């Protein structure tokens, strides 16, 4: 009898293990799905990050350059950029004027 008392315990033990197993599987499934979700969010963020940003359009420094660019093939190899002296950007005031004698 004593030993029979154990089968009941044994039966009881068997039911309890199946529940735990179900619990572990569910937890695992949830964790996996969560991981996928995290990964998916990361991928989306990464994808957003690698979308090329719109490049600023470099405007020419002067109307004359605009005219020049209008007829320049921008696919050709770039020329050396000349950085203008800030003091010469505006047309200087004429101090003298050469002309035939008068």
């Amino acid at each position: 009898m004593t030993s029979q008392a154990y089968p009941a315990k044994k039966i009881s033990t068997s039911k309890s293990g199946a529940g735990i197993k179900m619990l572990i599987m569910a937890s695992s499934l949830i964790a996996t799905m969560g991981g996928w979700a995290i990964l998916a969010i990361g991928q989306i963020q990464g994808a957003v990050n690698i979308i090329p940003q719109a490049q600023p359009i470099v405007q020419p420094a002067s109307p004359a350059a605009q005219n020049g660019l209008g007829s320049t093939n921008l696919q050709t190899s770039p020329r050396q950029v000349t950085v203008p002296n800030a003091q010469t950007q505006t047309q200087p005031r004429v101090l003298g004027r050469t002309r035939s004698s008068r």
Partner: protein
Amino acid sequence: MRLDFRAMGCQMLVLIDSDTADATEMLAKVPTWFEAWEQSLSRFRDDSELNALNRADGEPMRVSETLWQVLDASIAAARESAGLVTPTVLDAVRAAGYTTSFDLLVSSANAADAMASKAIIDWRAIERDEKKRSVRLPQGMHLDFGGVAKGWAADQAAQRLSVIAPVMIDAGGDIAISASRSNGEPWSIGLANPFEPESDLEILMIERGGVATSGRDYRRWQCNGKGQHHIIDPRTGAPAETDVLTATVAAPTTRDAEAAAKAAFILGSRAGLGWLEARASLAGLLVLDDGRIIKSSRLQNFLWSEPLAFEPPPSNGVENVSVDKS
């Protein structure tokens, strides 16, 4: 600080880059310098030293340091231009009707009847004795310093004022510059459009030296129904027949610029441009009768231009553009 006055039949402007009392004092002297030079060098003043020399009738005459220097500059110009710019053209200028100062000429229709063109006596016939500072003109030779005197005077004035501060002198369109401005910047000089004199074709940035323009856009008149001007071609003894309306030259000195501009004008566009290109110290711009503009390759070194984001395409050195003649 600036000073405006009239001298040598032209409007003068002096800019000195200083406000000191020394600059004020020196600036006030400039008109008296020009008056003294004009009294020596003018052909329009009967009592000038030049006219005394022209009346010497083959006899040697001791001359002032001023006349000696200007004659020396004139002979140097004649040598450099192979005789195209020579002081021995006075009779030919008179024969073309330019017998009085230009102000009188245009105000009173005072031009004498044009006469037959005059043969030009070779400048090498002028005799000089440096020790005695005397000059002898062969009989029949008469001098006119119109092609050099104003440039020489502008150079002289700029040199004298330069002990005070950087200076720019605009002597009726002939420009002398002693040095960069006090802030280190070059002087900006407009190159007048002969079809529209109050506007500029280009702006030249000059640190030192001279710029001058010769042309027939202003000093011209009618004689016997024929258009005349004051620049004589010594090869013909008559006003130069050329396709150039104005010639502008930048050079180390104003007298060099003045002589070179006249030579390029007389030679015409093709030969004139070649003459300028062959001389490393010169840069020039020619405006032709039809409105075209021709620039020598070295002029690029002086041109102000709006800053570019990209270098301009390489040019062939000679640039042809047109100017609106309206």
